[in-house]
């Protein structure tokens, strides 16, 4: 077979998923219809939902193979991890010194990890089941890296396994104080810590009020929302979550968080676990004396089987990946997949992610004004960096100050409530229409200015022409490379077209094009770098770049 024929066959296999037709006895089943052709713009839309930023190369690949096959491929790729990266570094004097390396490996995986979809979903999960460097985990970088890897490992797994792994992870244990939580001691007026019990239910699984399958709030006969639980249920779960502490700890409370303890699931100390009866959701009661492990399993089952989980997780993942304001139908379709993946399995997150990304509403042919979402600052940054091969002289991306200048960074939320609320609605038309725009909560005047200024420096100064002798440029300064754009910058139209293709899938508004052209008219044609920087700067700070269609 000639090479061209091989390639054609491979392409056909990838496209149609057909067998190679080696001539067995039976008639091969008819191949499924080939996927509909994908436009360049649609490929960009999809990749901005499913990765850390569309690139021309990936868009070409996607168009060749189709969305379903791309998702299949992604879900089969080996996982990019954070923890081995930290463990390979020389041990620091103080643990906190590794936090820049943790940010570094997050950016490396986000920018260069082949498993883009897994990493993007892990990032979404890290904004739902939040732990943060800011607080008690500031000197536990191994715990944070291991926690992130845990989210990534379960990104396409089962939600029930995910919440168990999250519950027993020492990062979560320390962050929401289940670690070292002891049974009641009435003589000392001590009762179980309610922190994890409360946030697990409110933020990670079911929320405060009962939902319909389409995500709308269920109302009682008086048109009031129906609470999912009350204080007695929180106390029931708080009693469940007693008795767990660091693996291999010499004491139940106050053990030093060694590297091993930071990354090893918590262990049960039975003598600190409450043995009484425990009230759970929907009137379920755990019998006394069955032990901490059985209590934990039953309690997580109790949450997992609550009918809210499907719509609750559907809304949050749709908001992180696709749109801030999904229709009830979209939520219901995804929630139905959570409830049953088609094979009778509840909680299949891989199926949920696929349902979210392949739903007709994910990329409507004629978007209306509430479709899509604002891109988070980190995603705007990674899209730019991926598009222009951003790299530092050291090869590192140690941006652990991200939360200060972008309002967010990897596992750097100010609290368990994430950088922004799923319910945030800025004043004006969005709030007046009872819509939400979560990412706008951190698009404040201050942070927008910070971001705009960062982009000014990134484009005009921190680029491929930066002089390493400049004391402002360190070996860790991340530089973008737009030499190719600078080379064709004498032709203003060609330059604008190319940047618009790279960053906006070719869809640039007339205003933005005209304003860039106006600025380029003021810059001499031989100033290629300046002209290209100007063009990229005005695009990446524009409202249309901030918008994920």
């Amino acid at each position: 077979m000639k090479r061209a024929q091989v390639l054609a066959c491979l392409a056909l296999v990838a496209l149609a998923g057909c067998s190679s037709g080696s001539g067995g006895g039976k008639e091969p089943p008819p191949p499924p219809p080939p996927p509909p052709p994908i436009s360049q713009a649609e490929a960009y839309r999809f990749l901005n939902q499913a990765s850390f930023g569309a690139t021309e190369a990936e868009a070409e690949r996607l168009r060749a193979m189709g969305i379903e096959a791309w998702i299949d491929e992604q879900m089969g790729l080996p996982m990019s991890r954070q923890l081995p990266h930290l463990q390979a570094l020389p041990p620091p004097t103080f643990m906190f010194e590794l936090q820049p390396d943790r940010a570094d490996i997050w950016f490396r995986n986000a920018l260069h990890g082949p498993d883009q979809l897994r990493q993007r979903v892990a990032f979404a999960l890290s904004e739902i089941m939040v732990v943060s460097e800011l607080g008690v985990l500031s000197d536990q970088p191994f715990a944070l890296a291991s926690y992130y890897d845990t989210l990534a490992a379960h990104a396409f797994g089962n939600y029930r396994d995910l919440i168990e792994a999250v519950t027993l992870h020492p990062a979560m244990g320390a962050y929401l104080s289940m670690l070292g939580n002891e049974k009641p001691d009435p003589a000392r007026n001590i009762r179980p810590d309610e922190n994890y019990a409360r946030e697990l239910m409110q933020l990670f699984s079911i929320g405060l009020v009962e939902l319909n399958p389409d995500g709308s709030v269920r109302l009682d006969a008086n048109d009031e929302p129906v609470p999912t639980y009350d204080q007695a249920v929180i106390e029931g779960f708080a009693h469940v979550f007693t008795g767990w502490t660091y693996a291999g700890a010499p004491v139940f409370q106050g053990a030093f968080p060694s590297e091993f303890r930071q990354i090893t699931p918590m262990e049960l100390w039975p003598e600190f676990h409450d043995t009484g009866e425990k009230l759970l959701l929907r009137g379920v009661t755990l019998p006394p004396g069955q032990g901490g492990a059985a209590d934990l399993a039953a309690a997580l089952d109790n949450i997992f089987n609550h009918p809210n989980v499907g719509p609750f997780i559907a809304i949050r993942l749709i908001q992180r990946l696709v749109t801030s304001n999904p229709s009830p139908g979209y939520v219901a379709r995804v929630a139905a997949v959570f409830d049953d993946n088609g094979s009778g399995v509840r909680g299949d997150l891989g199926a949920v992610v696929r349902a979210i990304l392949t739903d007709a509403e994910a990329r409507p042919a004629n978007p209306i004004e509430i479709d899509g979402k604002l891109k988070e600052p980190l995603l705007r940054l990674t899209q730019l960096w991926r598009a222009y091969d951003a790299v530092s002289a050291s090869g590192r991306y140690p941006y652990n100050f991200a939360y200060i200048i972008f309002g967010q960074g990897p596992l750097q939320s100010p609290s368990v409530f994430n950088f922004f609320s799923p319910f945030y609605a800025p004043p004006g038309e969005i709030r007046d229409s009872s819509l939400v725009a979560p990412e706008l909560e951190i698009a404040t005047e201050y942070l927008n200015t910070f971001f705009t200024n960062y982009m000014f420096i990134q484009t005009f100064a921190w680029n491929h022409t930066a002089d390493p002798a400049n004391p402002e440029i360190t070996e860790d300064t991340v530089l973008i490379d737009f030499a190719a754009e600078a080379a064709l910058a004498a032709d203003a139209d060609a330059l604008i077209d190319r940047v618009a293709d790279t960053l906006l899938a070719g869809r640039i508004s007339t205003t933005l094009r005209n304003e860039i052209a106006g600025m380029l008219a003021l810059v001499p044609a031989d100033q290629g770098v300046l002209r290209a920087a100007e063009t990229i700067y005005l695009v990446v700070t524009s409202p249309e770049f901030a918008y994920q269609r």
Partner: protein
Amino acid sequence: MSMSKRPLTRRDFLKATSAAATATFAATPGLAYAQMVGSGAPFPDYRALVCVFLYGGNDSFNMLVPRSDAEYGVYAASRQNLAIAQDDLLPISPLTSDGVDYGLHFSMGATRSLFEAGNAAFVTNVGPLIAPTTKDQFFNQSVPLPPQLFSHNDQQDQWLTLRGRSQSKTGWAGRIADLIRLNVADQQMATNASLFGSNLFQAADETIAYVMGPGGPLRFEGLSGDPGAGLAYAQRQAFDRIVDAGYGSIYERGFAAVQRRAIDAADRVSAAIENARAAGAVTTVFPPGQLGTQLDTVAHLIAARDELGMQRQVFFVAAGGFDSHDNQNEDQPGLLANVSDSIAAFFAATVDLGIADAVTTFTQSDFGRTLTSNGDGTDHAWGGNQLVVGGSVAGRELYGSYPLLEIGGADDVGGGRLIPTTSADQFAATLARWFGIPEADLDTVAPHLANFTERDLGFMV
């Protein structure tokens, strides 16, 4: 009798009627303000409210503690390993006594000095309520309760919005700004300014809060409004036109609106702060840290009030770390010292500026914390104590009713979660009235005020 020096006893506390309150306030500037706000005329003076939000739920029953043996004994029995030692409490001497001696957390010496000098007061066991609530009413649910009690974000939202069971999406400072928007139409900055990000407190229907950083706004690099600035001027013009272009999605429009406000304010407000710093009128040195930095900036914004044409301002600043589920004994002294020292420095700065009477600082927090311990910390509760500081505070007093800190006592709904005996609506309305909101509009600011006998707690002169 002056309302402002009203004693703390329950008996006296309940004695005041709204009629008496109305009569008293007819003699205050409140009435004049009523006419003014209605007319939309500019205010004749300057006033500022500074909200210091303590995120996470300040354990304020360790901030203000009974010292008398009997009451201290009850406190110590409830708090066990989290109790502050009786001898470590800093004694205070309120002008009116409810028969119990009180002291402050040992790390709050600066607050004690403010208190003893008459420039600080506490409002005790205050929290979100829809109507006065007894323990029986709580358990048989015969009065409406704020939804999702003991949940962080919901109770923060209650304090910031006072929305009760309504779906209102505006904050009480936002409603204040809306009410006075015609009076302050010439201000060059929004009435509401935040140094700690977006917040519901300042969310409004008609006005938009301006969010700056802890050190003030940032200027836009490479964009200049000066026609002589060459490319930077052209770039600013281009940037402006891009921001102002019409957009097809609500997200682009929302983003563009923020950029618009940011560009409009950045240079002007930055310059005003820089000028104020250069003038050196604020000589007080602030403690290092998040809160001190924010309050330092607020002091300089106040110093720049004339340059910006400001008459009424509400500032939102905040500190985090108060969610003391763990390590409370280790963490609380530093947290409270920071609050105390930062607020005291801010008060001193307003004295530097000769404007202490026109600036009132107050704390809010998610909730008080359980009197009981979870081993090394506390969990989410309800009522708590708040600090009010300023030259116009009727200070050296405790307002409201300090509860008996008893597990299973009259105010405890379980685990040492105390039902507030004073509502956040009353707290807010008292501040709003001083700020210039007329009597009739206080119910807009504090929607449940009518459910409480006292429309004014009397802690503002």
